[in-house]
């Protein structure tokens, strides 16, 4: 009995820990700024959707959201295509001696460099290319980051797929690329989905480069646009909470769509 009680209490504690921030965000988004800052209520005493309306009528949040969706999905799509081919090449072909076994580490090193270190060079590059404050500038930047991540992550997925299947297809007359596209890639789909989720999460939430590379609602992404609600004297907390709720929805939606693949993808490569 005591064990059961402990389990229930532990479950409740974990649930509260996980759900409380979400509750607080949603609850705050339904309060007025006065209620948030001056009254500190546990739940909205006078629930209002005005904060959501204000985001779209006064704060150009529709543009921020559109920019985020376009930039994220285009850059992740390009990175997945390029990354899949790169990862396949590393997994299947022998590389020059000095590079054997080191490419993955090299790509990982590129990914773990603190972004702030290369922020200024990227800014100057985009300036010289005339790509500041454009979708293209962000897409190019995010794609560069995502490709390294995709290659590094997908390499292990391709290694898990028996090469015999491709060879059988080629014996039957398929080309190398055809075997890759028709045999290997479908088998690696769970890994592709897992990679896509992580890439989408990282890209959709990215702030630093969006901060440096965008200046107007034409290109500002959702996290970047939300930051404009922070004022010198007063901050629109209610709208920020509403922005948080709306901004979380596409990611939650996307994760729900591909969660089946995510679980399979995460266990690919695990010890059988």
């Amino acid at each position, binding site marked *: 009995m005591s064990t059961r009680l402990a389990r229930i209490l532990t479950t409740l504690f974990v649930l509260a820990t996980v759900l409380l921030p979400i509750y607080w965000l949603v609850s705050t988004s339904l309060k*007025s*700024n*006065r209620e948030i*800052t*001056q*009254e500190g209520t546990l739940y909205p005493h006078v629930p209002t959707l005005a904060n959501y309306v204000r985001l779209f009528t006064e704060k150009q949040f*529709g*543009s921020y959201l*559109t920019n985020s*969706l*376009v930039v994220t*999905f285009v850059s992740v799509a390009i990175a997945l295509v390029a990354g899949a081919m790169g990862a396949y090449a590393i997994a299947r072909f022998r590389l020059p001696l000095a590079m054997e076994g080191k490419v993955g580490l090299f790509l990982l090193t590129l990914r773990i460099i603190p972004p702030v270190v290369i922020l200024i060079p990227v*800014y*100057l590059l985009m*300036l010289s290319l005339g790509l*500041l*404050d454009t979708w293209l500038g962000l897409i190019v930047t995010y794609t560069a980051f995502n490709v390294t991540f995709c290659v590094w992550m997908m390499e292990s997925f391709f290694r898990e797929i028996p090469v015999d299947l491709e060879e059988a297809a080629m014996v039957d007359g398929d080309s190398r690329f055809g075997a890759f596209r028709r045999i290997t890639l479908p088998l690696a789909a769970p890994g592709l989905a897992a990679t896509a989720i992580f890439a989408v999460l990282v890209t959709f939430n990215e702030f630093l480069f969006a*901060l440096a590379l965008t*200046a*107007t*609602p*034409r290109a500002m992404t959702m996290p970047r646009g939300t*930051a*404009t*609600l*922070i*004022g*010198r*004297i*007063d*901050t629109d*907390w209610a709208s920020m909470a509403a922005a948080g709720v709306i901004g979380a929805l596409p990611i939650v*939606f996307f994760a729900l*769509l591909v969660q089946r693949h995510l679980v399979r993808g995460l266990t690919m490569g695990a010890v059988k």
Partner: protein
Amino acid sequence: MTHSSRLTRRSVIKGGLGLALATTALTTLGLPMAARAAGKKVIIGAFTDGGLTPFKQKIIPQAKEAGFDVEFLEDEYGVTLEKWFADAQSGAGQYDLYLLDDPWVPQFGAANVLEDLGAGGIDGSDKDWIGSMIDMGYWPPQQGPRVKGFEDAKPTLICVPFVGDLQTLTYRNDVFTGGAPKTWDEVIAKGKEGVAAGTIKYPVVFRGVSGNPIVTSWYPIFLSFGGSFFDDKWNPIFNSAEGKASADFFVGTMKQNAPSGVVEFDSDQEGAAILGGEAGVIIQYSGNALKADDPAQTKVAGKLDFGVVPKQEKAIAQMGIFIAGVPKSAPNKANAIEFLKWYTSAETQAKLSEAGSIPVKRSAFGVAKPGNRLIPVALQQLDAGALPRPRTPDWAKVEELLGIELNKALQAGSGGGAALDTAAKQVKDYLTTAGYY
């Protein structure tokens, strides 16, 4: 089942993508249509601040009627200085007009990235300007010490005042029943009476966060105690006897009469304390003061009045105006200068005053129906005394060094004078390294 599930997912994805593409197309098509709708394009960059609300709501529509196609872009205060400075220096040309915080003018001036507005036809000698405000638009300064390299340079009008923001006192009229408290001693004494009567919880509230917030809150007290920041050779003298007395009063007496968490307070918390009815007085800029009569923004509407900052020796506030500069890389430079001429005309300034924002021309303070009770008080404060922060491109660094030491003393609840000695040494060392002496 599996098949139907796959179809559903696919159809949902397709639907979502279709929606995203449709929204994208509408947005992309919509932006140029909006841009084509009006006449002379002017892209204004501003940091988010409640003090600009009347301008956004009332003046921009009038500007459109006057033939300007105003695009107003807001950004977070903390990033605007770096963003705009990079924009101006690199010539990226993303803005026609920056609405700067006035301490930033020296940095932009020293970098020579703003247009000469005097050459553009804006008359800085017009007697209708509030003198202390138009002075802030010149680089190098017309009066006071100058930084190295600009000793003999001719002052150029690179910015014009946009909103005449400055600190004033907001107080509870049911605690200070005889009108605005005249001295700091009165603030504390009557505030304690208000606490004892259960009308308020704390006599005073201010910002204690390290850096700009705490320095901004301490500065009017420092000025009121008779302090001066630098001598005419850029030697720090803020740790004079007057300065130390002000700092000791600030981290000691004021802290004891403020909310317990004041060390971590920024503008949101101090705004909530006064608008929520907890505090007796606050010295603040117009962003929160403009909310004092709005029941949707405050629990004590009708109980908040405005006055000149209390004095110890003098009643002097800090000025922190919005000031407009046109980058040399502005894509619509001529439009921006024409807009500024229209905006700073006596007629438009009068409309700004009627809209509730503090104007920058003296004539506009005298309109029959100013849109906010704060406006005549702001003029009283200007006449009583209001000073800008020292005109150096390195003010942000100075403020950071001083703010750290003041915050430490505030945490301790004592040692304000010693904190100023430490900060003065650090500032001196920093300015020495920067070649000031």
